């Protein structure tokens, strides 16, 4: 019983160690990604409100179907080409 308990406690310590590491790594990575993407966005596409408003229902977007078809064609080739 004691033995198993000590094992249990050890497993707990181990999980505590692993868990906190994962949580930190994950959120630290998130910090980095947020920073990166913020920088990227402000460089390449400095907030164009018109596009956002356009998103709210404008349908003046040419050739989106080719768009889909293209992407999916590519996808399928990549997929079948294995």
């Amino acid at each position: 019983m004691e033995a198993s308990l000590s094992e249990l406690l050890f497993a707990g310590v181990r999980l505590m160690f692993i868990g906190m590491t994962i949580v930190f790594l994950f959120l630290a990575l998130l910090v980095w990604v947020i920073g990166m993407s913020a920088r990227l966005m402000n460089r390449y596409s400095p907030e164009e409100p018109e596009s956002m408003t356009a998103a709210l229902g404008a349908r003046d977007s040419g050739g989106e179907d080719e768009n889909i078809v293209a992407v999916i064609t590519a996808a399928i080739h990549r997929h079948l080409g294995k």
Partner: protein
Amino acid sequence: MNGFVELWRSTGLSNFEAGQVVMMLVGFLLIYLAIRKGFEPLLLLPIGFGAVLSNIPVAGIAEEGGLLSYLYFGIKSGMFPLLIFMGVGAMTDFGPMLANPKTLLLGAAAQFGIFGTLFGALALNLVPGLDFSFRDAAAIAIIGGADGPTAIYVASRLAPDLLGAIAVAAYSYMALVPLIQPPIMRALTTPEERLIEMSQLRVVSRQEKVFFPMVLLVLTALLLPSAAPLIGMFCLGNLMRECGVVERLSKTSQNELINIVTIFLGLSVGSKMSSHAFLRPETLGILLLGAVAFACGTAAGVLMAKAMNRFSENKVNPLIGAAGVSAVPMSARVANKVGQESNPHNFLLMHAMGPNVAGVIGSAVAAGVLLALVQ
């Protein structure tokens, strides 16, 4: 610390299959189209998100016991599309159609988009690598109905495996109506025809609006019971709207209820977008056929309008024939827009709403035929 090893084995990184990666990209593409291009966002955003969720490795969100597997029951039972159809009925005003019943025929003609596509799908079997069964073809054809819930309802019954691709095609092309229809409409009409002005619509009495859904339901029950679930729920919604004594039920069914079901429906449709079901040549065929379907429907509607002008004195503007594909209210707006290119003072919108809603009935009827005759 083999705990980390264990954890690494449980990560997505170590379990991703190429197909899942691709499907997640497809999902994000749909989300992009929904948000940035305004492609039917109410449906394509949840569908895209559902596709992403269901292709996350290990998590098994779409597998037996996962959240989406439970939600999918709402499609399997037909409940979600039917409840949405009820809400759509509660949002639909049949006034313009009742004021000018002739326009129903435009809605009928436009259903050629469905049956033409059926033939097209079967013909595609000539292409090596493509293989559509009769059931598949029928399910794909319904894209031509340009009506989301109907398409999902029929596809979930005839070809559940194609549900994802069919729903995506249906909603995408509905969003693309402003690109697909105008060229066809211009090609098939003369400048004079596009200038035709139509007489002011008569006012339709409350009574007629209350009676119509019941009349429609009776005819369906008599002639095409297989369409009764779809048309029945649609009529219930419309009756609640028009009768004026169950305001609170009508409001709820066209707001909270339809919103809740829309989220669930979108996610469950997305849950059928697994790589093995979606990443097949057939999907390209479906996307191709979808475009064909909308084109056929539009053309048939316009030509029908021209034919009707032959035999009747009070002319209809053939542009409103294009609204017969439904895709409410987009295609009616398109008809109005194209009409105003020729004459800015010619307001066709209300006239186009007639064939527009007629198209909804038309495709529900066509759905009934498919469900009755395709085993």
